[in-house]
């Protein structure tokens, strides 16, 4: 079994061929998976939106607002909810990104944690904690204007996740940001046409 020798020609040729083949197959693979990847991403966002909104038949993304995703959902032409993505940098280890759904009057419908790097078992509990109707944990159905949505340690009316006050603060901070965004932009009304959920979902 004669091995190919390490001459310049051989070396270059080998690597060229290998990289070439690799490139070709990767390129095609990329083309192939491009669609599904996008779809998966979109599906995830949609799932989040659906989660934090009541039933709706049309969804529209407000592209006028910079730096965030802002969706209006309506049912039968009537605005039923607003979903807003918000990020707080105050997490225990990095940013916390959530999506909060508001009723048109500002009451919190539901939320979904999108991205975070909090400690498993501690900060990660926020995914359910603030939805659980136990003690003063839940923020669902609360209104940031009338309810003081900070942790009880800081004088608010929400129980922090045990042993994860920092994450809880950050989470509530993100809720606050979401609400402010809502406040600043809810007047941008009216919304219009029957854009379908599929179309409005992404850029």
């Amino acid at each position, binding site marked *: 079994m004669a091995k190919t020798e390490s001459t310049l020609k051989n070396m270059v040729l080998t690597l060229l061929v290998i990289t070439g083949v690799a490139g070709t197959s990767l390129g095609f693979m990329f083309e192939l998976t491009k669609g599904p990847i996008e779809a998966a991403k979109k599906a995830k966002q949609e799932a989040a939106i659906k989660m934090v909104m009541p039933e709706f038949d049309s969804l529209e993304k407000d592209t006028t607002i910079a730096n965030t995703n802002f969706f209006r959902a309506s049912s039968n032409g009537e605005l039923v909810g607003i979903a807003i993505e918000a990020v707080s940098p105050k997490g225990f280890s990095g940013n916390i990104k959530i999506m909060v759904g508001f009723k048109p009057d500002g009451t919190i419908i539901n939320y979904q944690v999108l991205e975070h790097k909090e400690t498993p078992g501690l900060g990660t509990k926020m995914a359910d904690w603030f939805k659980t109707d136990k003690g003063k944990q839940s923020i669902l159905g609360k209104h940031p204007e009338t309810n003081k949505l900070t942790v009880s340690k800081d004088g608010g009316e929400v129980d922090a996740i045990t042993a994860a006050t*920092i994450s809880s603060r950050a989470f509530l901070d993100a809720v606050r940001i979401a609400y402010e965004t809502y406040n600043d932009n809810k007047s941008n009304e009216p919304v219009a046409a029957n854009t379908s959920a599929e179309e409005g979902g992404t850029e």
Partner: protein
Amino acid sequence: MNTLTISPSPHVHSGDSVKKNMYGVVIALLPALAASLYYFGLGALIVTLAAVLSCVFFEWAIQKFLLKTEASILDGSAALTGLLLAFNMPTNLPIWIIIIGSLVAIGIGKMSFGGLGNNIFNPALVGRVFLLISFPVQMTLWPEPGKNMTAYLDATTGATPLSVMKEGLANGETVSALMDKIPSITELFYGNMGGSAGEVAAVALIIGLIYMLIRKIITWHIPVTVIGTIAVFTGILHLVNPELYAGPLFHLLTGGVMLGAIFMATDYVTSPMSNKGMVIFGIGIGIITVVIRVFGAYPEGVSFAIIIMNGFVPLIDKYIKPKRFGEVAKTTKA
């Protein structure tokens, strides 16, 4: 004629023994135990007993069934580990958690390395830190001193001065305002505050220190450097901004500084061998403690500081040697 015994010199021994040292430390801890019973009552008793008994049991069981070596539980080191573990836990900790802590301390922290003398990290602190991270909720609920002396699990809970300080500062309050929310310095000195079983009463711990120094169980190097470093470091921070950083007295008298500096950093097995090494070790503990307390997520950093420095002990021992005889003159190496 008698059969003569032959052995190399020396033919006499000081009579010092492992047991004497270990029980010496236990005796030195008695004032702190008394203080703990005084402040926390039943809970302190239960926690201490549970920890000591389970540590001794695990040591015995592991030696007997896993390592199949002769059991050496009578030397007192396992009991001491149990006692110190108990002193590092809130007095309303459920017993099953204490048992896990003891298993970790003895099983992972000590016996995995081959038992007494071989471990790299302080077993009691391994146990405590393991619990702290595993059960952050239970490990940070502190019974209030002097209240519900007969209650165990359902004692009223309060905060430790350190967590009050940490929380308060995080919320932008000032040190002077917060100092009013915690007991006075004298009360801190006598131990009237929330905290782990054995750490609260500085005065009792200092009595223990004096006892151990007199009996020559330990030397001054580690306790003094740890306490000194913390005092100096927090003193400097306090001078820089008295409203953002609490003063040295506050830091020395709260939390586990005294317990750690006197009883845990001094653990023979996990501290350096040379005096110079001990000084470096002590300074390291002091600095890390303050860094964690002031800048980190945890209100308290002594335990972490000690086990972090435990990790550096082999390096310290390798590079920092005791002063050698004739070294001064040996500048020109032959």
